[in-house]
């Protein structure tokens, strides 16, 4: 291949990447000749960046747990991962390097499979509809993979991502138009269609299953759980990393602090009511355990499902927080309470907005008035 041909290939690859980022047409005929930094692609990339710490911690725990189970009865079957790690001498558990390598081997194939599935559907729909490619594929496939158990078969990831992309997003018109985040739709689909892939499917949290008091007796502290001890799904172990991500999203203006504050408020109120009744864990544990923090930081804040009014954002978050507690208390055997809560809260958004707007109209009348 000569230099000219490779340059053409390079340009084609660059064009393809630009197309995936939603680029293409850039002419503006309108009267506004300048636009602020950060288009849809940037916004969604910020979500990926913000959830990277959570993904890294989750990957470490998944990798370490997986390594420690090699050879045991219910451990991973000997496959290419084990062969590869043994050949590289990284098969022993207990070291950060080994855990990282194992975690990457678990995460990357899943990510690749999900990305290929979602890019494929995006391109198909974009071509059929003669529209630019919707840039939502990156965020949805990334968050979707973080919501999977580490050892999900690749085929399941492809099927789940396809469901999420098509029925979660593309049939509604893509980013900015869907009702429930495609990552949530896809992950819930996988959890329901193939419950066997979940590590624990009889309780929403092992720690909560044995009771927090008993857990403390066994030497499990709240701080351990907060920093990341349970390895359930790939991205969800560390509540601290999720908080860091939420701070990044809010400070960059992508996520609404009202939604997040509303979520904590809902959790607080519902947990206060629920704690008295049964053996449900106290509030601080509710936040740290399970996948609440992840769903709160990265799925509840999805800009597409954000309510259009400020009051609506508070309510949206509060509904989510309260629903998580209600579901965990009412049916502690299912692990996806937070995912469900995100979905139901998102479905309620149009109604919340409707009511909030009626309230605005009632307070301020029909015309526009100045805020002072």
């Amino acid at each position, binding site marked *: 291949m000569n230099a000219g041909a490779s340059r053409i290939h390079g340009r084609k690859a660059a064009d393809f990447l630009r197309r995936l980022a939603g680029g293409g047409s850039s002419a503006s005929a309108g009267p*506004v000749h300048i636009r602020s930094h950060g288009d*849809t692609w940037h916004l969604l990339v910020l979500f990926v960046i913000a959830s990277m710490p959570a993904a890294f911690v989750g990957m470490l725990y998944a990798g370490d747990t997986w390594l420690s189970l090699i050879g045991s009865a219910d451990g991973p079957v000997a496959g290419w991962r084990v062969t590869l790690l043994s050949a590289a001498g990284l098969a022993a558990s207990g070291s950060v390097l080994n855990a990282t390598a194992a975690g990457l081997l678990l995460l990357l194939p899943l990510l690749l499979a999900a990305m290929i599935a979602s890019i494929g559907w995006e391109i198909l729909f974009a071509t059929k509809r003669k529209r630019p490619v919707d840039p939502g594929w990156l965020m949805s496939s990334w968050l979707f993979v973080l919501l999977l158990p580490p050892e999900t078969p690749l085929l399941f990831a492809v099927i789940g991502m396809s469901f999420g992309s098509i029925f979660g997003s593309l049939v509604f018109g893509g980013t900015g138009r869907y009702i429930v985040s495609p990552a949530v739709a896809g992950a819930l689909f996988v959890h329901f269609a193939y419950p066997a892939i979940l590590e624990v499917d009889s309780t929403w949290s092992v720690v909560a299953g044995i009771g927090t008091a008993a857990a403390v007796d066994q030497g499990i502290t709240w701080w351990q759980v907060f920093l990341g001890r349970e390895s359930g799904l790939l991205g969800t172990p560390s509540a601290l990393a999720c908080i860091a991500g939420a701070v990044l999203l809010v400070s960059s203006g992508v996520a609404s602090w009202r939604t997040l504050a509303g979520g904590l408020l809902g959790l607080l109120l519902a947990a206060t009511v629920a704690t008295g009744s049964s053996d449900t864990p106290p509030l601080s544990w509710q936040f740290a355990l399970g996948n609440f923090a992840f769903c709160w930081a990265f799925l509840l804040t999805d800009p597409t499902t954000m309510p259009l009014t400020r009051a609506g954002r508070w309510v949206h978050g509060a509904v989510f927080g309260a629903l998580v507690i209600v579901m965990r208390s009412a049916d502690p055997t299912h692990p996806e309470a937070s995912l469900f809560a995100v979905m139901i809260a998102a479905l309620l958004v149009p109604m919340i907005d409707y009511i909030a707007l009626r309230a605005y109209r009632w307070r301020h009348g029909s015309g526009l008035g100045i805020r002072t």
Partner: protein
Amino acid sequence: MRIELKHGLDIRLPGAPMQRMDGTVDTTRIAILPADYRDLRPALAVESGERVAAGQRVFNDRRIPALACTSPVSGIVTSIHRGSKRRIQEIVIERDGNAEITFPSYSTAAVCKLSADDIRQNLLASGLWLSLRTRPFDRAASPDDRPRALLVTAIDTNPLAPDPAVMLHDNADAFVAGVKLLARLCTGTTFVCVAAGTSIPVPEAEHIRRVELTGPHPAGLPGTHIHALGLEVRREADLWHAGYQDVVDVGQLFLVGRVPARRVIAVAGPCARRPRLVSTLPGADLGEFAAEWSEADGKLVSGSLLAGRGPARFLGRFDNQVTMLPSTGVGDYRRQSLLARLAAFFRGTNGHAAVSSIGAAGGMLPSESFEGIWPFHVPPMPLLRALLSEDAEQAEQFGCLGLAEEDLALCTYICASRNDYGAALRAALNAIERDG
């Protein structure tokens, strides 16, 4: 009366103009652009090659023949450019000679005693009536109507805008006379909207009120003023507004008896060699401003970067500034490293920087920043979403009637999904007018 705006955005761009008159650019050609008058349908009164005098009628509206547009200069009509559907785009006039049509002139004292009918007749004959625009719909006022309120906009908060006080300092008499004359057309109050603490003179009269505004950008737009003053917006286009230069023109017409032919504009932007205010002709050929720019092939915008026309060849009728954007864009983020982009992303929402990179439009993504730049009570996003989904009824309920394209320009500017809310608003206004 003083109104303080808390929400809005001042976009900071390189090349802000020095607020001082410095030089004159008298171009050899000017053009009249019928598109400036929105939905006026011109019936030409001149032909290509014909000689016109300053103040002579060039075209009038097919529907309301009394609405006439006149030539601001004496010269020869060199060409008439038509676009699709033979719509007239430019009527180019080459300056030549000093022929001019004179109109009745009055002393400063006599001006105040003129009847509304005399004023109307004189404005229609001279073509200056077209400087009066209405809300809702933002188009030329009808000669048969009398406005419920008139707003004179003598404040400009657009990025890189000229300070009206500089121009009005030299034309104080004409401005005061113009305000008094226009106030006589109005059945209600005439509001003169100025920046707080400015030296702009406002006549003392019962029906004329000085409104001082402070705050970031939308503070200078008539759409903001109407709502800040609590004026009720009705379907009838009975709220009028006029720009300060047009009011000076009206004053000049009655004091001197000639159609005035001067505009003070800001020549500014990242490419301007000496960003400053210059005096030029209405509809000036922007090609003759080449010496002002440091770059040859940038995008020339007539009007503000938030509400301008570009690439432009001639100065627009209501434009008070000319800006050239570099061909590379202002800090085009696609050329920067990821770290720089992230840093810029954080800065961008604070209004310290801006770019001119425009991608394809997608579904609207709500974000808190919309509320930060929105000066009104009613939340912005329900209105914006109603506009995008072409739901004119909802949009009217959320208050779109009193707005024009420029009022939503900041929303378009910060929108991550790259939608043009101005165009959507115009479509909704057209639908409201068509379907009643």
